[in-house]
């Protein structure tokens, strides 16, 4: 049971990330590979805030969200000028820059050695020390982000984003300032990713820059592609599949000499099959 609880915590964290990414990619059609960067900034805000500044977990969540929002606002101004492949390349560049900063700004991030001993959340003297309590808190925040996604999806703001996704020029002709919409959703998505980063840092208790590389951004992208673009439940189901599948494969009894390699091959093959038979993802409302 404890193992499943741990698995569920990771599922919750990746659901938050997938939901926030789907706001940008699925709902707005902006191919962003920068999510790992915001995830990392959130995680480092909590790690540094709790271990060096003596801040509480929830304060560090806010701190991470604010830092992410400011960075996303500045970068979003630049990104809003691009679309399609160029948007993806520039956002990947942001991910690489943030990784390099985390790796080399040793006086703040402790560089490649990372930060350990990150504490657990605490409210009014109660510490979420047990995994089941931590899971409960993770699921509450996941639900909040799910609700935010659901609300945007049904709002007039969300409808403009979808219009922008389908045809940006036409949306501009209709009188909407698309750059503004692109910036706002990018800032919101970045701030929400920071929450996931904070939870990850507290859960794992140790972080280093290697977790927040571009490949993590691609993994998050895979989650929403498999689950389905522009779909809240697709984001959650995508996270469920991509987090639980490797764990299921740990149990299939392959010979130990090649088990790790075989698990990776089977994992890759299953994703490939899923994309062949469900190219729009499991619950996708939009196909790239």
């Amino acid at each position, binding site marked *: 049971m404890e193992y499943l609880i741990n698995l569920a915590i990771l599922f919750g964290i990746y659901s938050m990330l997938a939901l926030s990414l789907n706001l940008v990619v699925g709902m707005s059609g902006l191919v962003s590979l920068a999510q790992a960067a915001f995830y990392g900034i959130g995680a480092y805000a909590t790690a540094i805030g709790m271990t060096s500044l003596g801040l509480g977990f929830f304060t560090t969540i806010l701190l991470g969200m604010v830092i992410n929002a400011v960075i996303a606002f500045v970068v979003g101004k630049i990104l809003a000028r691009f679309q399609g492949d160029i948007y993806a390349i520039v956002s990947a560049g942001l991910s690489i820059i943030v990784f390099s900063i985390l790796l080399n700004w040793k006086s703040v991030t402790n560089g490649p050695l990372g930060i350990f001993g990150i504490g657990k959340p605490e409210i009014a003297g109660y510490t979420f020390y047990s995994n089941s309590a931590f899971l409960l808190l993770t699921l509450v925040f996941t639900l909040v982000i799910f609700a935010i996604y659901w609300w945007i999806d049904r709002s007039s703001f969300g409808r403009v984003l979808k219009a922008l996704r389908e045809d940006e020029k036409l949306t501009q002709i209709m009188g909407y300032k698309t750059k503004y919409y692109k910036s706002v959703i990018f800032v919101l998505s970045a701030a929400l990713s920071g929450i996931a980063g904070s939870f990850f840092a507290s859960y794992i208790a140790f972080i280093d820059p290697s977790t927040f590389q571009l490949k993590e951004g691609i993994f998050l992208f895979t989650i929403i592609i498999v689950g389905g673009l522009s779909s809240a439940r697709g984001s959650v189901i995508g996270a*469920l599949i991509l987090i639980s599948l*490797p764990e299921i494969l740990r149990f299939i009894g392959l010979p130990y000499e090649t088990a790790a390699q075989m698990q*990776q091959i089977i994992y890759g093959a299953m994703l490939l099959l899923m994309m062949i038979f469900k190219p729009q993802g499991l619950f996708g409302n939009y196909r790239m």
Partner: protein
Amino acid sequence: MKKFLLSILMATALTACGEKAETSKENEKPVVKIGAILPLTGNSASLGEACKSGLLKAQRENKSQNLKYDYELIFENNLGTTSATAQAANKLVYQDKVDVVITFLNGMGYVVAPISENKDILHFCGTFQKADLKPLGKTSFVQGTSIEELQSKIIEVIKSKNISDIAIISVNFSNAAQMMEILESKLKKENIRTSLNVFNPGERDFRILIEKLKKEGFTHYYVSAFPPETDIIVKQLHDANIENQYILGQGIDLGNNNDLYNGITCFSLTLGSQKFIDEVSQEYDLTNIYGAGVNYNIFNLIVNSYENTPSENIKPSTNDLINYIKNTKKFECIGGNCVVSDNNLIKTPPTLRTYKDGKPLVLE
């Protein structure tokens, strides 16, 4: 779709609920389950395979002896990431109910330490050690070579070769760059001209850097990197006509092209004796043996502790095992004695080696 999702949930739940027997069927000896979390795929796979080979070799050798317990190894892949390490640790601790967990490199040790401590399970992490390294936790031991001891050896060799200048090229990963910063300051104290050049993992072209260092008059180079960068740097040093004998490799470790390293002096944490290195290389068809020695030592230390700790129950408690290890203080290991300090650090001496005909040759 619902069926598909349901099947995923069912599969996860079913696999997670399965438990294995705690005793072996052959002779009904109690089984000590040892879970090893290693990077078996990805960039660090060669490191993980070497660690795995060291453990398997120790397990095979111990099987032929008449021991109180059977020692079962369960390998889990962490892909070199912290999140996969946490999941692997949770699976081993809560599902497989292992008695001991083994990790490699500090970062992974930090992730597993709180999990093992929470369940009161013994944990060993193989790595380099810095003198001021904070202990991982009550139930965790760090086993490896101290940076201070390693660097004293490096300076001793540099001085014995009358080297007056040395350029350091180091990857900025784990504690490699930090180690090189310490080495740089020590070299300066010895009046050896030096230059520390740090690069980020994934860089491939070092030719401009090498040319710059050559122009600055550096004739000797110290490379501290992981594969494949190690191979790339050394190949590019060769291409720049820098003779083999002037290159001092850290060996964290070398890549898969050992012919590149003929004549180079390499320093590393304990690799073991020449006999051990030859055996591991041949038995498991390995070119990279870094980590095999440390894990071989860890496995034997676990066996030693279990076999010699008296217990009223089927197996000794974690507390008894920790006390046994701390009280014994010194264990016979390959590559010298393993010395246990009060803060759960187990020190082993560094290994100095060179390469001849593409094969590692232990110098000390």
